[in-house]
């Protein structure tokens, strides 16, 4: 049955059966995410920027575990913050990631799978999001610096002979704008935090009652 003539003489093995090109072929195709698609019209998935909130055990090593997870699985992190919560046994990690929808879902599940993670939730677009920036500029024009800081809802928090440091909090675009606006005063140094976030209204940001190993719905 084997009429394959290209077998090299050294190759002692050649099993019987129709050649690859003689076999029936399936009709369908999957994309790189393993989703069946129309072979004629393959659409690229766009990445989205989403905020994830994770309630974790407040113990050593958890932050390292989370950041190592995101690094080794090649999830794109925009920012990561960690801090205390109302419960002394729990810390909250807020992550902003940029991934395609299947990537976001996978990131949530991998995060929830870590043993010290109690709950994970993807926040809605209307969630309260805040970042903080400290911007140190030259103190040549203190009044103008103060006025600009106030325009962005911020304030001067340190002033000396050479420098003034202002604090701005707000959503990311507001921080970006402020940083740009202060450039004209000669920025010496900037430090920025990642995003801290809470869900709107009575919605719990990451309910501790959520079974962490079950996939989460977006609602």
């Amino acid at each position, binding site marked *: 049955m084997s009429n394959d003539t290209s077998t090299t003489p050294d190759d002692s093995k050649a*099993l019987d059966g129709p050649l690859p090109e003689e076999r029936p072929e399936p009709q*369908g195709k999957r994309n790189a995410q393993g989703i069946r698609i129309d072979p004629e019209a393959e659409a690229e998935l766009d990445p989205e920027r989403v905020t994830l909130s994770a309630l974790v055990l407040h113990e050593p090593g958890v932050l390292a575990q989370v950041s190592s997870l995101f690094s080794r699985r090649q999830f794109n992190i925009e920012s990561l913050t960690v801090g205390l919560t109302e419960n002394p046994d729990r810390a909250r990690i807020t992550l902003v990631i940029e991934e395609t929808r299947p990537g976001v879902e996978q990131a949530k599940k991998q995060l929830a799978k870590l043993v010290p993670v109690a709950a994970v939730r993807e926040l809605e677009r209307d969630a309260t999001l805040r970042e903080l920036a400290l911007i140190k500029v030259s103190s040549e024009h203190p009044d103008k610096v103060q006025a600009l800081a106030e325009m962005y809802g911020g304030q001067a928090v340190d002033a000396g002979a050479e420098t003034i440091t202002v604090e701005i909090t707000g959503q990311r675009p507001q921080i970006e704008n402020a940083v740009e606006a202060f450039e004209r005063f000669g920025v010496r140094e900037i430090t920025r935090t990642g995003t801290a976030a809470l869900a709107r209204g009575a919605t719990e940001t990451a309910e501790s009652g959520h079974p962490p190993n079950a996939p989460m719905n977006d609602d």
Partner: protein
Amino acid sequence: MSDHERDEADATNGEPVPDGGETAAGQAGATAPGSAAERGAGDEGSDPGVDEPPTDESDQRAAERPVGTGAQSVVRALENADIEYLFGVQGGAIMPVYDALYDSEQLTHVTMAHEQGASHAADAFGIVSGDPGVCLATSGPGATNLVTGIADADMDSDPMIALTGQVSTEMVGNDAFQETDTTGVTDPITKHNSFATDPDTVGDDVGEALALADSGRPGPTLVDLPKDVTNGETDREPGAPQMPETYTVQKSADRTNVVSAARAIEEADQPAILAGGGIIKGDASQELYEFATEYELPVVTTMPALGAFPEDHELSMSMAGMHGTGFANMAITHTDLLIGIGTRFDDRLTGGIETFAPDAEVVHVDIDPAEISKNIHADYPLIGDAGTVIEQLHDQIDRAPDADEWRDQCVEWKEEYPMDYPVPEDRPLQPEFVVEALDEATGDDAIVTTGVGQHQMWACQYWEFTEPRTWVSSHGLGTMGYGMPAAVGARLAADDEQDVVCFEGDGSFLMTLQELSVAVREELDVTVAVLNNEYVGMVRQWQDAFFEGRHAASEYGWCPEFDKLAEAFGARGWAVDDYDEVADAVEAAVDYDGPSVIDFRIDPQANVYPMVPSGGDNGKFALSEGQL
């Protein structure tokens, strides 16, 4: 405690929803405020000796030999979990634990030649017994030598616990002698690890690690044991093992999804089951058999699932993937409904994602939600324990799918793509013949361990597996040298009457053959079959196919005489060059009550077929090098 029914209100219109079925939290004992148990989730409650309160036996042990140190508490936690064997190597920072072991009648420690061997032996023990295997090592190099075996257990979801010595707490961070950040190094390759901080609670840490290792999706856990903690005084007996309050396992799938999947199965024209290693870990072979035979569903297996479904059954399509059978790969390529159970759709199984089961809707059963739609999109996600979900499906299906034609097609493929290998008279011994000879000479329940490479694939293909927990190999990590230490662990976990056969390649065997000394010292009845082609054969095969035959660093041209080496170790050894010597040597080696090695000098040019090149199309498997 009662099972906690999740609100299913979000399951609308009978459409498949992300599976949020019943959840059980693995919490025993006291209920912490806000914990899963308080919220009404149930006790997992199916792990004997894990979630139960201390037994009379543990009380008796405590009365006879009360705990006095952290190390003794570690030993007591192992005893309370009914551990019998430990595999390890002594060393400075772990000495307090070994000293405590000295007094235990229940625990038998097997000293291995190298810590890597200890981790593989513990891994294999876990695979065969279903209970966590235990390995021990000292800090620094002891711990880092365990790493390969821990990573191996992690990739294959095997229940295992590693206990590592550590320098004293006050020295940690100072680059002390034999100090390594063991919890840091092993974080990505363990299910969970912990650093013990207190002699009073170190036994509980070990109990928790044991409980986690074999609950839900199994995996390796590790407890790092600083010397001051194990040496430290305590009179506290470890409590009943308690799962972390944040850990929950979903045992049964969401009913709505089960109903949708059941309808899809009823309506399928070309259904196929893809049985994964989760069938074996979940002890679901019986449920799988009843399900597949009642609805006459052809069963393809992954490599870790060899033995999950009897390969001599007419519905068995054997193993699919890179070196799977032609008929398995045809079935998996042309099925219109693939029921994957306990599989993570590894790339050696799927080949290129684009061409994997491209016409199939996928029902995916897995206990780990993170595996659902990770590699292959699940049209019907069913999160839960394999056996439980199979029974849920079984109860829900009203009629078998109308698939007579499909089954005829599967039979036709078996005839079209037979695994009959040529036996050319002018060529040396063919390896498949050796595998078949050993299969014939041993019992149906014989356990096979292997290294990694061509010999491993021939063992997959030409050994007929009919029972679960008889195939012990390194699947995900692909660790050469796994076979010999795994045979040590498998032998101690197996029943006395079960044969244990280890297939190794010459290159693979050379990586860990010092563990043969352990088999000799411990008088373990194992038969090692070296399929010796004086090559790193799989690399040589790839070089011939993809690198114009340039044999860079794959050609040994010389190997030690493994039969004589075996004799030098105190084992029995044979060397076999011809077909007519095979049967006698196999019989003598299998009959010998102790470790034996047969050096089979096989055809150095023998290749493994069928073969799907990496990332290739399963349906286009090659039957010879020319087809690659």
